[in-house]
């Protein structure tokens, strides 16, 4: 089936808001090339469970496409229209299984050397959308905080190397009560500019506390879901004919209900947490990967004003089958390796924050927990500089946010 043949009744399995959205913009969907339509539906099918920022993006995209002339659409979609797909894929039920379709499409594009062309088409399309989107004023400077190195008392390699040219290194901080000072500061921000899923605290261990106005998620709090996911993966692994690609597809189709999880009352957050585990490689076994990937996904999807991401020591490396079996009764930790993971993770935190609106005013702070060194990237501070000023973490944050 081609997009031009789409009809509203084919979307009866979609959740209500997604169904209504498709009906509203049916003419747009019918005009999309086959290489693009299922990829957009992949987003739309989850519309009811998406963060407000994501829903706004989808709305904006459809509104933008709806007002394009026929000629403009041809221009916008030219790259996608030049992608050829086999009949097997066009006949696939891509309306109801857009995720599976896009995985098969991806494999086909690689095997026919069309991936570069598709990538170019997607990049150009995204750039056009960006240009057409009206930027909104943020209520606050965006703030990212990464707290790294918990439990690592010594480290013999230089830290913050990827960020040092972008900010100021503070080498004589007073670490006392540092975490609480940072938590209090983000809590105050959340209260001053309340926003649904706009302020987050992510912890690679246990939450220190549950600050008011923040969406909180931790490796400990998703423990039961993680255990169920690992059980599911183990069961899948033992299925004859199973391979990595099918496992990934099956995991992507997982829902909290299918996994036997009780609802927390926040289905958007429940689904997000599940996706962190089902779509993130390594999030099921390493807490450092969990924090890095969760931070990335929160920034990409929820576009929050604040994230405080705290890394905790991950378990030591063991054979992968053993890690996936979640079998060891006594978990051995690797604080040094975790510090290196988190140092890189904090760099990715900053990069992902810089992809969002207001990047030129945003602030990023990374602190080695319990120690006197931190690096701050802020429009108010020089780049590539070092400061030996003595201050605590609360004072440092105030300085950065001026």
């Amino acid at each position, binding site marked *: 089936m081609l997009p031009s043949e789409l009809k509203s009744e084919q979307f009866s399995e979609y959740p209500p808001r997604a169904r209504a959205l498709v009906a509203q913009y049916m003419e747009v969907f019918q005009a999309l090339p086959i290489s693009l339509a299922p990829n957009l539906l992949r987003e739309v099918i989850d519309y009811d469970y998406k963060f407000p920022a994501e829903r706004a993006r989808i709305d904006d995209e459809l509104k933008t496409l709806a007002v394009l002339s026929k000629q403009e659409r041809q221009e916008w979609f030219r790259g996608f229209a030049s992608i050829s797909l086999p009949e097997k894929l066009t006949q696939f039920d891509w309306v109801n299984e857009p995720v599976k379709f896009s995985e098969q499409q991806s494999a086909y594009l*690689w*095997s*026919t*050397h069309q*991936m*570069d062309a598709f*990538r170019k088409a*997607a990049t150009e399309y995204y750039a056009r959308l960006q240009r057409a989107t009206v930027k909104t004023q943020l209520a606050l400077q965006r703030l990212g905080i990464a707290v790294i190195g918990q439990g690592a008392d010594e480290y013999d390699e230089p830290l913050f*190397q*990827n960020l040092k040219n*972008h900010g100021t290194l503070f080498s004589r901080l007073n670490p006392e009560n540092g975490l609480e000072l940072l938590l209090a500061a983000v809590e105050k921000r959340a209260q001053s500019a309340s926003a649904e899923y706009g302020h987050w605290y992510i912890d690679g261990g246990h939450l220190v506390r549950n600050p008011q106005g923040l969406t909180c998620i931790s490796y400990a709090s998703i423990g039961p879901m993680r255990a169920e996911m690992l059980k599911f993966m183990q069961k*899948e*692994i033992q299925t004859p004919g*199973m*391979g*990595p*690609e099918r*496992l990934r597809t099956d995991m992507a189709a997982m829902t909290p209900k299918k996994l036997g999880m009780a609802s927390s009352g926040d289905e958007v957050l429940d689904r997000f947490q599940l996706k962190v585990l089902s779509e*993130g*490689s*390594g*999030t099921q*076994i*390493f807490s*450092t*990967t969990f924090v*890095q*990937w969760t931070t*990335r996904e929160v920034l990409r999807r929820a576009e929050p004003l604040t994230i405080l991401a705290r890394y905790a020591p*991950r378990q030591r*490396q*063991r*054979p*992968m*089958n*053993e890690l*996936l079996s979640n079998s060891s009764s006594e978990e051995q930790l*690797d604080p*040094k*390796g*975790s*510090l*290196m*993971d988190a*140092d*890189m*993770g904090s*760099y*990715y935190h900053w*990069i992902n924050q*810089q*992809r969002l609106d207001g*990047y*030129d005013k945003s602030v990023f702070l990374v602190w080695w927990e319990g120690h006197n060194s931190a690096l701050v990237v802020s429009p108010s501070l020089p780049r590539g500089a070092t400061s030996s000023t003595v201050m605590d973490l609360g004072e440092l944050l105030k300085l950065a946010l001026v």
Partner: protein
Amino acid sequence: MNIATNEQSIALGVSRSRRDFLRGAAHLALGSSMMSISPLVRGETARKKRKVIVVTFGGGARDQETFAPEGQHNIPHMLSELAPQSTFFTHVTNQGILGHYVATASLTTGVYETLNNFSAVPPDHPTVFEYFRKELKRPSSDAWVVAPSNGFNRIGESECKNFGPGTGATVILPKHLLSAAARGGTANLDHLLRDNYESPLFTPSLAGGEFQIQQLESILRLSVSDFMSHARTLSSPDELSLYIAVRLMQEEAPSLLWITMHDMDVAHSGAYSLYVEGIRRTDRLCGELWKAVQANPEYAGNTTLLILPDFGRDSDLDPGGNGFQHHRTGDVASRTTWMMALGAGIKQGVLYDSPIQSIDLVPTIGAMLGFSAAQSNGRPVKELV
């Protein structure tokens, strides 16, 4: 700063950065100024004695953790011991599918293969081992592959007409060998059976020319108990691979030996420190391999060693990826790597930054050893032949 990527400038920057660094740190000179000092191996006798070892520095290594200035501390052996003796290519591109098996298969055939990366299938085109054995009438003992992952068991030969089963390389899968030798009792050896994150469950039934446990003794002159004892002293699958490779060199002295490293692909789990640890280990193993070559009279003086990653990994800045963790975007960083050549017939201390492709490897080996790679889509790298 906004995060923007310009692929052309990244590619150029990557290549320049690597070149500038190597010129300073490893005292390499631009190739165009060094054309007069080639110790080329000439003559039929020399060619018959010549041996080639290929090491794929995998699975998937980026510049910034290897030859770029910020990665140099991870590769002290290649940088200070091997690079000064080498001809170094700063700009090697892989235009094929960026999966480890299919990419390595493409390296062995000189054609960008399109097979399913997770299937136990042979390459669709003749391999370098088949060309080598058929045209030079070499016995099976003269071409070997050592690969850590069970998924590589069909890489030694294709099923092509006039080539195919029995005409390629024997494949040793050290982890498979270890499992078989341990007969299920792998206590204290699990670290050597560690698989990459993407395929912990991928253990296809073995078929083709894979090495059998009985041959431990008959070919490697190694008892199961000695093999197990030594394995207990090692720390990773790639260390086990090197041990087997060196043993093969001692006992069989193959003229064409292919070693696939894979430890660093633990990057898929998202733990940067484990990825870097894998690179540092592979660097050390490359240094040890070169020492083993020099210490072995069958190899010293007549061996060319070629080291190259199968491909890179995604850039930190590509929004479609997650940096070092995967190689899924097809961006410049994931497609652009390097190659180091050293030993017999290779100019020392030279670098080239003109682009070559990974599929050029097979015809280049063909030109070195004296066979044609008729179905390859690559071209011999003129600076090496």
